[in-house]
């Protein structure tokens, strides 16, 4: 009995306490305000003052993708480090600001990427340069809801370049389809008869490449796809597929593969089978030092890949004055003293340059105005762009860089080619 009444007393306290709390809380957040963006048009967005602008990055800095991830921070940090040392970046509204970068590690974990975004969104002006499809996707919708720009991110996922679906986003690197299509077109334009074997990864990566390639050769009657096989990203060997493809006698293999050891093993297996087709490799598995040389790529009539930027690992890169300056800036401002083995350092540097273009056209310190400025860059040749590639942000559905150049392995690195053969 006694117990019962006590319980009721406790419940009463709880109820009372809750009621008081609820009334108190009614005004708790309203005063602080500013959950979203519609505060007032001319007021500056978060992360920008008259002297500084802060950019946020969430990218893998530890774990399996730490190598390229670190590069995505290093490149842009080097670019703006040098710009800040020169006095800052001039904005379209006449003010000169220094650019600060806050980078957080997400370990390629979507949940952590979202958490990093939540932490950064009120203190940074825009999110940029982060690497990874799942990690960028994880906060894409939140960025739209909070009206935070998430721009020039490193993912080949087309959704980031679709303005309908992603009004506050823009991808930087070409989508997989762009790469496949460029090679397909080159083959179609060669004028010679080609039999093509396709070996692709059984996921959206491989499918994207193949889709682009088939589009590129669409309508060309000199190119015939004789066999199309897939493998799983978890497979440890593709010997069976290669044996089957070799039997077709194809003179070109389109190898949409993202696994480094498998790409090396494929090159070697084909040689063992005495099959020497021209070889296509995607941009991220075509490293001369890490893949083509160990695989004995020189034995083939040609190993092709696509690119839009110069490779910092190429032998003559460090000799050019720009290349030398780039490597020095990396070491000085981004604490990255080695010659980067990943292309992402150069890409991220180009992101910095592209952002500077957008800043130059910003007339108001707001995120809306920034997005407008960013979407108006046409035919900009960023540092280290290959001839034929440009930054073009005006076309809906395409990332900032969508034109790629086909390159051929020349024994040491790659050089651009106009025709096949």
């Amino acid at each position, binding site marked *: 009995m006694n117990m019962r009444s006590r319980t009721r007393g406790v419940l009463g306290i709880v109820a009372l306490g809750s009621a008081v709390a609820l009334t108190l809380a009614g005004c708790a957040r309203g005063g602080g305000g500013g959950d979203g963006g519609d505060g007032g048009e001319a007021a500056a967005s978060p992360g920008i003052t008259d002297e500084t602008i802060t950019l946020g990055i969430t990218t893998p800095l530890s774990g399996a993708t730490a190598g390229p991830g670190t590069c995505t921070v290093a490149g842009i940090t080097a670019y703006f480090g040098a710009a800040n040392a020169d006095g800052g970046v001039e904005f379209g509204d006449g003010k000169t600001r220094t650019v600060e970068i806050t980078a957080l590690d997400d370990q390629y974990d979507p949940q952590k990427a979202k*958490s990093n975004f939540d932490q950064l969104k009120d203190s940074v002006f825009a999110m940029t340069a982060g690497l990874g499809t799942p990690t960028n996707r994880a906060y894409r919708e939140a960025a739209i809801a909070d009206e935070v720009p998430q721009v020039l991110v490193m993912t080949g996922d087309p959704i980031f370049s679709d303005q309908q679906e992603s009004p506050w986003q823009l991808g930087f690197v070409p989508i997989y389809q762009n790469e496949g299509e460029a090679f397909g077109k080159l083959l179609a334009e060669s004028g010679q008869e080609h039999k093509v074997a396709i070996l692709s990864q059984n996921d959206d990566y491989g499918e994207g490449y193949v889709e682009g390639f088939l589009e590129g050769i669409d309508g060309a009657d000199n190119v015939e796809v004789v066999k199309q096989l897939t493998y799983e990203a978890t497979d440890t060997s593709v010997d069976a597929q290669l044996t089957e493809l070799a039997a077709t006698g194809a003179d070109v293999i389109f190898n949409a593969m993202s696994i480094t050891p498998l790409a090396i093993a494929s090159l070697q297996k084909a040689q063992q089978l005495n099959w020497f087709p021209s070889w296509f490799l995607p941009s991220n598995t075509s490293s001369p030092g890490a893949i083509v040389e160990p695989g004995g790529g020189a034995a083939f009539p040609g190993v092709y890949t696509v690119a839009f930027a110069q490779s910092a690992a190429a032998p003559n890169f460090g000799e050019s004055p720009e290349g030398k300056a780039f490597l020095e800036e990396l070491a000085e401002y981004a604490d990255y003293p080695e010659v980067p083995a990943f292309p992402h350092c150069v890409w991220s540097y180009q992101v910095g340059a592209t952002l500077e273009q957008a800043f130059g056209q910003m007339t108001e310190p707001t995120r809306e105005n920034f997005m407008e400025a960013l979407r108006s860059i046409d035919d900009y040749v960023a540092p280290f762009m290959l001839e034929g590639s440009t930054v073009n942000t005006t076309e809906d559905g395409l990332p900032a860089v969508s034109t790629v150049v086909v390159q051929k392995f020349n024994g040491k690195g790659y050089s651009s080619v106009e025709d096949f053969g």
Partner: protein
Amino acid sequence: MAAVTGLWERTWVRWVVAALVVVLLVVLPLILPELANQRLARIGVFAVAVLGLNVVMGYTGQVSLGQIFFVGVGAYATAWAVREEWNIVLVFLLSILVPGILGLVIALAAARLGGLAIAMVTIALPIIGVPLAKRLSDVTGGSQGLSARFSDAPEWSGLYDDQWQLYLVILIGGIVFLLTRNLVHGKYGRAFAIVKANEAVASSMGISPYRYKVLAFTVAAVIGGVSGFLYMVVVQYTSPETMSFGHSITLLASMVIGGAASIIGSLIGGAYYVLVPEITNAIDPSLTALLQGALLLLVLFLLPGGIVSLPRVIRRALHRSRRDAGPQGPTASSPTRPAQGRPAAEGTTHTERQGQA
């Protein structure tokens, strides 16, 4: 200290404390800033996941390295059902049913094995899970993952999204914690403890280790599913990386650091899982993995029983210093083996419990 313990024994004190906690949980989301709410919600998500792991590992003693798989399955089930526009209650049921059934089927096979063999089987789960999620792209969205924004605050509530989400986590997570607490403190909990301590003894008392292992594993999978549902409430996105093997190990580390076989320890484990990456990021974003490893070792060296054992360690240290300072001086045996004092005491309670069972 004794006064505090004495006070705690009284029922009304417990009620008042419980009421205070409830009031705090109701009030806090309303007054905390957005980021704190999101952080708390995330802690809730992973506290539930750690709790599930605790049921099978902490309480029943079966090493499971596959907990993240069930979290991932729960998240995918939620995302899929939301996309199919199911009623939210059905979504929730699906998110616990699918992992539960999977857990049951796997446990039926795995629990036949003893000791580390179970660990080997459970390692396979996240390793299979990631490529499977990529492969079944019609259901899972492939490596691009699935978004599901279903947990925005409804108009009538007048709340911000983060407040609404935190309330959902507190409500659902709170129920799961209460139910689990009752489970492990009741008849099943005693059976789990005996299976953990000695399977032969369990069998001799008519407790089938196999049945209870299967039960614990299934319960862990169901709780993992709840955690997956809450993951979608808070993160609103899932991809194959959600269930990558590394996260399973981090969950395990969180459980050990929080405190194995402890309800409060699960909460601390969740906090560890969420806060440590943030803290290490604040120190130096390029050294996060290293710092996390160092922290893990530090806690394991200083507090082998997990953070939850901290009050006990402090109490013992106080005791010792008081006794050292006392007039009669230390007795010969007790200060030299303080670490063994507690487990021994727990051992006797086990035997008492066994007697009751």
